[in-house]
Protein backbone atom coordinates (compact mmCIF):
# COMPACT_ATOMS: atom_id res chain seq x y z
CA UNK A 1 0.00 0.00 0.00
CA UNK A 2 2.69 2.44 1.11
CA UNK A 3 4.83 1.30 -1.75
CA UNK A 4 2.18 1.93 -4.33
CA UNK A 5 1.67 5.40 -2.94
CA UNK A 6 5.36 6.05 -3.21
CA UNK A 7 5.34 4.82 -6.79
CA UNK A 8 2.47 7.09 -7.74
CA UNK A 9 4.33 10.00 -6.21
CA UNK A 10 7.43 9.22 -8.21
CA UNK A 11 5.34 8.90 -11.36
CA UNK A 12 3.82 12.31 -10.82
CA UNK A 13 7.23 13.83 -10.17
CA UNK A 14 8.47 12.39 -13.44
CA UNK A 15 5.52 13.84 -15.28
CA UNK A 16 6.16 17.20 -13.71
CA UNK A 17 9.75 17.06 -14.87
CA UNK A 18 8.64 16.19 -18.39
CA UNK A 19 6.31 19.20 -18.37
CA UNK A 20 9.13 21.48 -17.31
CA UNK A 21 11.35 20.12 -20.05
CA UNK A 22 8.63 20.62 -22.65
CA UNK A 23 8.07 24.18 -21.48
CA UNK A 24 11.77 24.84 -21.70
CA UNK A 25 12.12 23.45 -25.23
CA UNK A 26 9.08 25.33 -26.50
CA UNK A 27 10.30 28.54 -24.89
CA UNK A 28 13.69 28.33 -26.53
CA UNK A 29 12.23 27.36 -29.91
CA UNK A 30 9.75 30.25 -30.02
CA UNK A 31 8.35 28.88 -33.27
CA UNK A 32 5.92 25.99 -33.35
CA UNK A 33 7.67 22.68 -32.68
CA UNK A 34 6.60 19.41 -34.30
CA UNK A 35 5.13 17.10 -31.68
CA UNK A 36 7.12 14.25 -33.19
CA UNK A 37 10.30 16.19 -32.40
CA UNK A 38 9.35 16.59 -28.75
CA UNK A 39 8.54 12.89 -28.57
CA UNK A 40 11.91 12.07 -30.08
CA UNK A 41 13.86 14.15 -27.58
CA UNK A 42 11.92 12.92 -24.56
CA UNK A 43 11.77 9.39 -25.91
CA UNK A 44 8.02 9.14 -25.41
CA UNK A 45 5.44 7.36 -27.54
CA UNK A 46 3.29 9.79 -29.54
CA UNK A 47 -0.03 9.12 -27.74
CA UNK A 48 1.61 9.78 -24.38
CA UNK A 49 3.25 12.91 -25.80
CA UNK A 50 -0.05 14.26 -27.11
CA UNK A 51 -1.72 13.49 -23.79
CA UNK A 52 0.89 15.38 -21.84
CA UNK A 53 0.57 18.38 -24.12
CA UNK A 54 -3.22 18.45 -23.83
CA UNK A 55 -2.97 18.27 -20.06
CA UNK A 56 -0.43 21.06 -20.00
CA UNK A 57 -2.50 23.20 -22.34
CA UNK A 58 -5.51 22.70 -20.12
CA UNK A 59 -3.76 23.51 -16.87
CA UNK A 60 -2.10 26.63 -18.30
CA UNK A 61 -5.52 27.80 -19.39
CA UNK A 62 -7.39 27.20 -16.16
CA UNK A 63 -4.59 28.78 -14.16
CA UNK A 64 -4.81 31.79 -16.46
CA UNK A 65 -1.06 31.91 -16.83
CA UNK A 66 0.65 34.64 -18.82
CA UNK A 67 2.06 32.07 -21.17
CA UNK A 68 -0.32 29.68 -22.85
CA UNK A 69 0.24 26.52 -24.82
CA UNK A 70 -1.29 26.19 -28.27
CA UNK A 71 -1.40 22.61 -29.48
CA UNK A 72 -2.54 21.72 -32.98
CA UNK A 73 -2.56 18.31 -34.57
CA UNK A 74 1.09 18.52 -35.57
CA UNK A 75 2.70 21.21 -33.48
CA UNK A 76 2.93 22.85 -30.10
CA UNK A 77 3.88 26.45 -29.40
CA UNK A 78 4.01 28.79 -26.45
CA UNK A 79 1.97 31.95 -27.01
CA UNK A 80 1.04 34.83 -24.79
CA UNK A 81 -2.30 34.84 -23.01
CA UNK A 82 -4.63 37.01 -25.06
CA UNK A 83 -6.43 38.12 -21.91
CA UNK A 84 -3.48 40.31 -21.05
CA UNK A 85 -3.11 41.95 -24.46
CA UNK A 86 -3.82 45.38 -22.98
CA UNK A 87 -0.76 45.22 -20.75
CA UNK A 88 1.32 43.84 -23.61
CA UNK A 89 0.27 46.68 -25.87
CA UNK A 90 1.19 49.21 -23.24
CA UNK A 91 4.62 47.70 -22.84
CA UNK A 92 5.72 46.92 -26.38
CA UNK A 93 5.05 48.67 -29.64
CA UNK A 94 1.78 47.53 -31.05
CA UNK A 95 2.80 45.20 -33.80
CA UNK A 96 -0.51 44.43 -35.38
CA UNK A 97 -0.64 41.54 -37.74
CA UNK A 98 -2.05 42.57 -41.08
CA UNK A 99 -5.77 42.26 -41.39
CA UNK A 100 -7.15 39.85 -43.89
CA UNK A 101 -9.32 41.29 -46.65
CA UNK A 102 -12.94 40.35 -47.11
CA UNK A 103 -12.31 38.41 -50.31
CA UNK A 104 -9.49 36.41 -48.72
CA UNK A 105 -11.64 35.67 -45.69
CA UNK A 106 -14.59 34.49 -47.77
CA UNK A 107 -12.38 32.26 -49.88
CA UNK A 108 -10.67 30.94 -46.78
CA UNK A 109 -14.02 30.27 -45.10
CA UNK A 110 -15.26 28.16 -48.01
CA UNK A 111 -12.02 26.19 -48.13
CA UNK A 112 -11.86 25.76 -44.37
CA UNK A 113 -15.45 24.58 -43.89
CA UNK A 114 -15.68 22.52 -47.04
CA UNK A 115 -12.20 21.10 -47.43
CA UNK A 116 -10.99 19.49 -49.53
CA UNK A 117 -12.34 21.69 -52.33
CA UNK A 118 -11.29 22.81 -55.78
CA UNK A 119 -11.08 26.41 -56.86
CA UNK A 120 -14.19 25.84 -58.99
CA UNK A 121 -16.08 24.78 -55.84
CA UNK A 122 -15.09 28.04 -54.16
CA UNK A 123 -16.06 30.06 -57.21
CA UNK A 124 -19.44 28.38 -57.38
CA UNK A 125 -20.21 29.55 -53.86
CA UNK A 126 -18.78 33.04 -54.16
CA UNK A 127 -19.99 33.68 -57.69
CA UNK A 128 -16.71 35.34 -58.63
CA UNK A 129 -13.30 34.23 -59.76
CA UNK A 130 -10.92 33.40 -56.90
CA UNK A 131 -7.51 32.86 -58.55
CA UNK A 132 -5.97 35.80 -56.79
CA UNK A 133 -7.38 34.98 -53.37
CA UNK A 134 -6.34 31.34 -53.63
CA UNK A 135 -2.81 32.28 -54.67
CA UNK A 136 -2.56 34.78 -51.84
CA UNK A 137 -3.79 32.27 -49.28
CA UNK A 138 -1.23 29.77 -50.52
CA UNK A 139 1.50 32.39 -50.18
CA UNK A 140 0.34 33.12 -46.65
CA UNK A 141 0.65 29.40 -45.97
CA UNK A 142 -2.96 29.28 -44.79
CA UNK A 143 -4.06 26.80 -47.43
CA UNK A 144 -2.19 24.12 -49.29
CA UNK A 145 -2.73 21.65 -52.11
CA UNK A 146 -3.93 18.40 -50.61
CA UNK A 147 -4.56 16.34 -53.73
CA UNK A 148 -6.37 16.14 -57.03
CA UNK A 149 -10.08 15.66 -57.57
CA UNK A 150 -10.93 12.56 -59.53
CA UNK A 151 -12.91 14.33 -62.26
CA UNK A 152 -12.12 15.56 -65.77
CA UNK A 153 -9.01 17.75 -65.68
CA UNK A 154 -8.02 16.53 -62.24
CA UNK A 155 -8.28 19.93 -60.56
CA UNK A 156 -6.25 20.65 -57.44
CA UNK A 157 -7.93 20.15 -54.08
CA UNK A 158 -7.14 22.64 -51.32
CA UNK A 159 -7.23 22.32 -47.56
CA UNK A 160 -6.11 24.43 -44.62
CA UNK A 161 -2.69 24.23 -42.98
CA UNK A 162 -1.35 23.95 -39.48
CA UNK A 163 -0.55 27.65 -39.70
CA UNK A 164 -4.21 28.35 -40.37
CA UNK A 165 -5.10 26.64 -37.09
CA UNK A 166 -2.49 28.59 -35.17
CA UNK A 167 -3.40 31.89 -36.76
CA UNK A 168 -6.99 31.38 -35.72
CA UNK A 169 -6.08 29.95 -32.33
CA UNK A 170 -7.82 26.60 -32.74
CA UNK A 171 -6.69 22.97 -32.52
CA UNK A 172 -8.68 21.38 -35.32
CA UNK A 173 -10.99 22.70 -38.04
CA UNK A 174 -14.12 21.45 -36.30
CA UNK A 175 -13.50 24.07 -33.62
CA UNK A 176 -14.43 26.72 -36.18
CA UNK A 177 -17.66 28.57 -35.37
CA UNK A 178 -20.75 26.53 -36.28
CA UNK A 179 -18.65 23.94 -38.03
CA UNK A 180 -21.46 21.38 -38.19
CA UNK A 181 -23.75 23.87 -39.83
CA UNK A 182 -21.47 25.39 -42.45
CA UNK A 183 -19.65 22.25 -43.39
CA UNK A 184 -22.84 20.61 -44.65
CA UNK A 185 -23.02 19.98 -48.34
CA UNK A 186 -26.41 21.67 -48.66
CA UNK A 187 -26.88 24.69 -46.49
CA UNK A 188 -30.13 26.16 -47.84
CA UNK A 189 -32.47 23.80 -45.99
CA UNK A 190 -31.62 25.18 -42.61
CA UNK A 191 -31.06 28.72 -43.78
CA UNK A 192 -34.08 30.01 -41.91
CA UNK A 193 -32.27 29.26 -38.68
CA UNK A 194 -29.18 31.23 -39.56
CA UNK A 195 -29.20 34.43 -37.56
CA UNK A 196 -29.57 37.52 -39.72
CA UNK A 197 -26.30 39.31 -40.30
Amino acid at each position, binding site marked *: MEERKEEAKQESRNEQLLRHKIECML*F*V*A*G*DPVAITELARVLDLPMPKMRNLLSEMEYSYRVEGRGV*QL*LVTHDTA*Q*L*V*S*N*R*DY*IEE*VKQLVNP*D*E*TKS*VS*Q*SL*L*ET*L*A*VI*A*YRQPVTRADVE*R*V*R*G*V*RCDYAVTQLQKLDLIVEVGRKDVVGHPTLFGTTDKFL*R*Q*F*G*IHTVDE*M*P*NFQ*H*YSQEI*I*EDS*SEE*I*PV*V
Partner: protein
Amino acid sequence: MPYTVQLQQFEGPLDLLLHLIEEAELDVKDIFVSEITAQYLSYMDQLDELDMDTASEFLTMAATLLYIKSRQLLPRPPKEDEAEEDPETLLIRQLRDYKAFKEASEQLKTLFEDAKNSRTRLPEDIPLPPKEVALDGATMEGLFAAFLEMLARKKDEPEVIHSQHVNPDRYTVRSQTAKIRSVLLEKHAISFEDLFTADAERTEIIATFMALLEMIARGEILLKQKAPFAPIRISADKLLLDDDNYEYMDESED
Protein backbone atom coordinates in the same frame (compact mmCIF):
# COMPACT_ATOMS: atom_id res chain seq x y z
CA MET B 1 -31.42 55.62 -53.76
CA PRO B 2 -30.38 58.06 -51.06
CA TYR B 3 -26.68 57.53 -51.63
CA THR B 4 -24.57 55.83 -54.24
CA VAL B 5 -22.74 52.71 -53.29
CA GLN B 6 -19.69 51.91 -55.32
CA LEU B 7 -19.76 48.60 -57.10
CA GLN B 8 -16.12 47.98 -56.20
CA GLN B 9 -17.01 47.47 -52.61
CA PHE B 10 -18.91 44.30 -53.41
CA GLU B 11 -17.20 40.97 -53.62
CA GLY B 12 -19.24 40.09 -56.71
CA PRO B 13 -22.79 39.96 -58.07
CA LEU B 14 -23.99 37.70 -55.25
CA ASP B 15 -22.65 40.13 -52.70
CA LEU B 16 -24.46 43.01 -54.40
CA LEU B 17 -27.71 41.06 -54.57
CA LEU B 18 -27.46 40.19 -50.89
CA HIS B 19 -26.87 43.83 -50.11
CA LEU B 20 -29.99 44.82 -52.02
CA ILE B 21 -32.03 42.11 -50.33
CA GLU B 22 -30.89 43.28 -46.92
CA GLU B 23 -31.63 46.91 -47.75
CA ALA B 24 -35.14 45.93 -48.77
CA GLU B 25 -35.43 43.74 -45.66
CA LEU B 26 -36.53 40.83 -47.76
CA ASP B 27 -36.03 37.13 -47.49
CA VAL B 28 -33.79 35.61 -50.12
CA LYS B 29 -36.67 33.63 -51.59
CA ASP B 30 -38.69 36.78 -52.25
CA ILE B 31 -36.09 38.30 -54.52
CA PHE B 32 -38.14 37.81 -57.69
CA VAL B 33 -41.32 39.43 -56.46
CA SER B 34 -39.40 42.60 -55.57
CA GLU B 35 -37.80 45.53 -57.37
CA ILE B 36 -34.36 44.12 -56.78
CA THR B 37 -33.74 43.16 -60.38
CA ALA B 38 -34.33 46.75 -61.43
CA GLN B 39 -32.05 48.05 -58.70
CA TYR B 40 -29.38 45.58 -59.69
CA LEU B 41 -29.54 46.70 -63.30
CA SER B 42 -29.23 50.33 -62.29
CA TYR B 43 -25.89 49.50 -60.74
CA MET B 44 -24.67 48.28 -64.10
CA ASP B 45 -24.06 51.91 -65.11
CA GLN B 46 -20.91 51.78 -63.05
CA LEU B 47 -19.47 48.87 -65.00
CA ASP B 48 -17.14 51.08 -67.04
CA GLU B 49 -14.98 51.61 -64.01
CA LEU B 50 -14.46 47.90 -63.42
CA ASP B 51 -11.94 45.61 -64.98
CA MET B 52 -13.09 43.11 -67.55
CA ASP B 53 -13.14 40.09 -65.25
CA THR B 54 -15.28 41.70 -62.60
CA ALA B 55 -17.49 43.43 -65.12
CA SER B 56 -18.25 40.20 -66.94
CA GLU B 57 -19.32 38.54 -63.70
CA PHE B 58 -21.76 41.35 -62.94
CA LEU B 59 -23.01 41.27 -66.53
CA THR B 60 -23.58 37.54 -66.49
CA MET B 61 -25.71 37.95 -63.40
CA ALA B 62 -27.63 40.79 -65.03
CA ALA B 63 -28.35 38.51 -67.98
CA THR B 64 -29.51 35.77 -65.64
CA LEU B 65 -31.83 38.13 -63.82
CA LEU B 66 -33.29 39.41 -67.08
CA TYR B 67 -33.78 35.89 -68.32
CA ILE B 68 -35.64 34.94 -65.15
CA LYS B 69 -37.78 38.04 -65.43
CA SER B 70 -38.64 37.27 -69.03
CA ARG B 71 -39.61 33.74 -68.09
CA GLN B 72 -42.05 35.10 -65.56
CA LEU B 73 -43.68 37.30 -68.18
CA LEU B 74 -44.19 34.42 -70.57
CA PRO B 75 -46.58 31.59 -70.03
CA ARG B 76 -44.61 28.59 -68.85
CA PRO B 77 -44.61 25.30 -70.67
CA PRO B 78 -46.78 22.88 -68.71
CA LYS B 79 -44.04 20.42 -67.71
CA GLU B 80 -40.38 21.26 -67.52
CA ASP B 81 -37.57 18.82 -67.41
CA GLU B 82 -37.53 17.58 -63.81
CA ALA B 83 -33.82 16.91 -63.79
CA GLU B 84 -32.89 20.51 -64.45
CA GLU B 85 -33.16 22.99 -61.64
CA ASP B 86 -34.99 26.09 -62.82
CA PRO B 87 -32.82 29.23 -62.77
CA GLU B 88 -34.80 30.88 -59.95
CA THR B 89 -34.25 27.99 -57.56
CA LEU B 90 -30.62 27.79 -58.56
CA LEU B 91 -30.01 31.46 -57.90
CA ILE B 92 -31.82 31.37 -54.58
CA ARG B 93 -29.73 28.39 -53.53
CA GLN B 94 -26.56 30.19 -54.61
CA LEU B 95 -27.56 33.27 -52.65
CA ARG B 96 -28.24 31.25 -49.52
CA ASP B 97 -24.99 29.40 -49.84
CA TYR B 98 -23.08 32.58 -50.32
CA LYS B 99 -24.87 34.27 -47.44
CA ALA B 100 -23.94 31.39 -45.15
CA PHE B 101 -20.27 31.66 -46.04
CA LYS B 102 -20.30 35.40 -45.70
CA GLU B 103 -21.47 34.87 -42.16
CA ALA B 104 -18.95 32.14 -41.60
CA SER B 105 -16.18 34.42 -42.78
CA GLU B 106 -17.37 37.12 -40.38
CA GLN B 107 -17.10 34.64 -37.54
CA LEU B 108 -13.70 33.51 -38.74
CA LYS B 109 -12.65 37.13 -38.72
CA THR B 110 -13.64 37.44 -35.07
CA LEU B 111 -11.69 34.29 -34.33
CA PHE B 112 -8.70 35.72 -36.18
CA GLU B 113 -8.88 39.08 -34.41
CA ASP B 114 -9.04 37.32 -31.02
CA ALA B 115 -6.16 35.04 -31.83
CA LYS B 116 -4.13 38.09 -32.82
CA ASN B 117 -4.08 39.06 -29.17
CA SER B 118 -1.89 36.05 -28.57
CA ARG B 119 1.69 36.92 -29.30
CA THR B 120 4.58 34.62 -29.97
CA ARG B 121 8.21 35.21 -29.29
CA LEU B 122 11.43 34.83 -31.22
CA PRO B 123 13.65 31.84 -30.52
CA GLU B 124 15.93 32.32 -27.54
CA ASP B 125 19.54 32.85 -28.42
CA ILE B 126 21.41 30.67 -25.99
CA PRO B 127 24.83 29.14 -26.26
CA LEU B 128 24.39 25.42 -26.65
CA PRO B 129 26.95 22.83 -25.66
CA PRO B 130 28.82 21.40 -28.65
CA LYS B 131 27.16 18.75 -30.69
CA GLU B 132 27.79 15.30 -29.25
CA VAL B 133 28.85 12.64 -31.65
CA ALA B 134 27.45 9.27 -30.78
CA LEU B 135 29.97 6.69 -31.87
CA ASP B 136 28.65 3.80 -33.80
CA GLY B 137 30.63 0.59 -33.51
CA ALA B 138 32.77 1.83 -30.63
CA THR B 139 32.45 -1.19 -28.37
CA MET B 140 35.10 -2.83 -26.30
CA GLU B 141 34.90 -5.93 -28.50
CA GLY B 142 35.42 -3.80 -31.58
CA LEU B 143 38.29 -1.95 -30.00
CA PHE B 144 39.99 -5.12 -28.92
CA ALA B 145 39.42 -6.79 -32.28
CA ALA B 146 40.96 -3.83 -34.06
CA PHE B 147 43.90 -3.93 -31.72
CA LEU B 148 44.52 -7.64 -32.29
CA GLU B 149 44.14 -7.26 -36.02
CA MET B 150 46.72 -4.54 -36.06
CA LEU B 151 49.15 -6.61 -34.00
CA ALA B 152 48.62 -9.58 -36.28
CA ARG B 153 49.24 -7.44 -39.33
CA LYS B 154 52.49 -6.18 -37.87
CA LYS B 155 53.56 -9.72 -37.20
CA ASP B 156 52.84 -10.68 -40.81
CA GLU B 157 55.15 -8.17 -42.37
CA PRO B 158 58.33 -7.83 -40.35
CA GLU B 159 60.58 -8.48 -43.42
CA VAL B 160 59.22 -5.52 -45.26
CA ILE B 161 60.06 -3.30 -42.40
CA HIS B 162 63.59 -4.69 -42.08
CA SER B 163 64.50 -4.67 -45.73
CA GLN B 164 63.18 -1.23 -46.54
CA HIS B 165 63.95 0.62 -43.36
CA VAL B 166 60.79 2.54 -43.62
CA ASN B 167 60.90 5.38 -41.21
CA PRO B 168 57.54 6.80 -40.43
CA ASP B 169 57.20 10.34 -41.70
CA ARG B 170 58.12 12.22 -38.64
CA TYR B 171 57.46 15.57 -40.16
CA THR B 172 53.96 16.64 -40.97
CA VAL B 173 52.57 20.00 -41.95
CA ARG B 174 50.69 20.07 -38.67
CA SER B 175 53.71 19.34 -36.53
CA GLN B 176 55.85 21.85 -38.43
CA THR B 177 53.14 24.50 -38.17
CA ALA B 178 53.08 23.98 -34.44
CA LYS B 179 56.86 24.18 -34.30
CA ILE B 180 57.02 27.43 -36.27
CA ARG B 181 54.32 28.87 -34.09
CA SER B 182 56.14 28.06 -30.86
CA VAL B 183 59.41 29.53 -32.18
CA LEU B 184 57.63 32.70 -33.28
CA LEU B 185 55.89 33.06 -29.93
CA GLU B 186 59.31 33.42 -28.37
CA LYS B 187 61.32 35.25 -31.02
CA HIS B 188 58.70 37.09 -33.06
CA ALA B 189 60.87 37.18 -36.16
CA ILE B 190 63.27 34.62 -37.57
CA SER B 191 64.89 33.72 -40.83
CA PHE B 192 63.85 30.77 -42.90
CA GLU B 193 67.14 28.96 -42.27
CA ASP B 194 66.68 29.24 -38.51
CA LEU B 195 63.94 26.69 -38.76
CA PHE B 196 66.31 23.88 -39.69
CA THR B 197 69.40 22.29 -38.37
CA ALA B 198 72.27 21.59 -40.75
CA ASP B 199 71.40 17.91 -41.09
CA ALA B 200 67.71 18.48 -41.73
CA GLU B 201 66.02 15.72 -43.69
CA ARG B 202 64.44 16.51 -46.99
CA THR B 203 60.99 15.53 -45.69
CA GLU B 204 61.44 18.00 -42.85
CA ILE B 205 62.27 20.85 -45.22
CA ILE B 206 59.31 20.03 -47.47
CA ALA B 207 56.89 19.78 -44.58
CA THR B 208 58.18 23.03 -43.10
CA PHE B 209 57.87 24.84 -46.39
CA MET B 210 54.29 23.61 -46.82
CA ALA B 211 53.53 24.70 -43.27
CA LEU B 212 54.80 28.19 -44.09
CA LEU B 213 52.56 28.38 -47.14
CA GLU B 214 49.55 27.38 -45.04
CA MET B 215 50.39 29.96 -42.43
CA ILE B 216 50.77 32.76 -44.97
CA ALA B 217 47.42 31.84 -46.46
CA ARG B 218 45.82 32.05 -43.04
CA GLY B 219 47.52 35.34 -42.21
CA GLU B 220 49.43 33.85 -39.33
CA ILE B 221 52.80 35.07 -40.52
CA LEU B 222 54.38 37.63 -42.82
CA LEU B 223 57.28 36.87 -45.14
CA LYS B 224 59.80 39.53 -46.19
CA GLN B 225 62.65 39.30 -48.63
CA LYS B 226 64.58 42.52 -49.17
CA ALA B 227 66.08 41.43 -52.49
CA PRO B 228 66.05 38.33 -54.66
CA PHE B 229 68.09 35.59 -52.96
CA ALA B 230 68.36 37.64 -49.78
CA PRO B 231 67.45 35.81 -46.57
CA ILE B 232 63.72 35.39 -46.03
CA ARG B 233 62.46 36.90 -42.77
CA ILE B 234 59.48 35.36 -41.12
CA SER B 235 57.53 37.42 -38.61
CA ALA B 236 54.46 36.63 -36.57
CA ASP B 237 51.21 38.23 -37.61
CA LYS B 238 48.02 36.72 -36.26
CA LEU B 239 49.20 33.43 -34.86
CA LEU B 240 46.50 30.88 -34.22
CA LEU B 241 46.54 29.01 -30.95
CA ASP B 242 44.57 26.14 -32.29
CA ASP B 243 44.28 24.68 -35.77
CA ASP B 244 42.22 21.61 -34.91
CA ASN B 245 39.61 22.71 -37.35
CA TYR B 246 42.01 22.68 -40.26
CA GLU B 247 42.84 19.63 -42.22
CA TYR B 248 46.24 19.61 -43.86
CA MET B 249 47.02 18.28 -47.28
CA ASP B 250 49.11 15.42 -45.96
CA GLU B 251 46.38 14.25 -43.67
CA SER B 252 43.66 11.85 -44.50
CA GLU B 253 42.12 8.92 -42.83
CA ASP B 254 44.86 6.30 -43.26
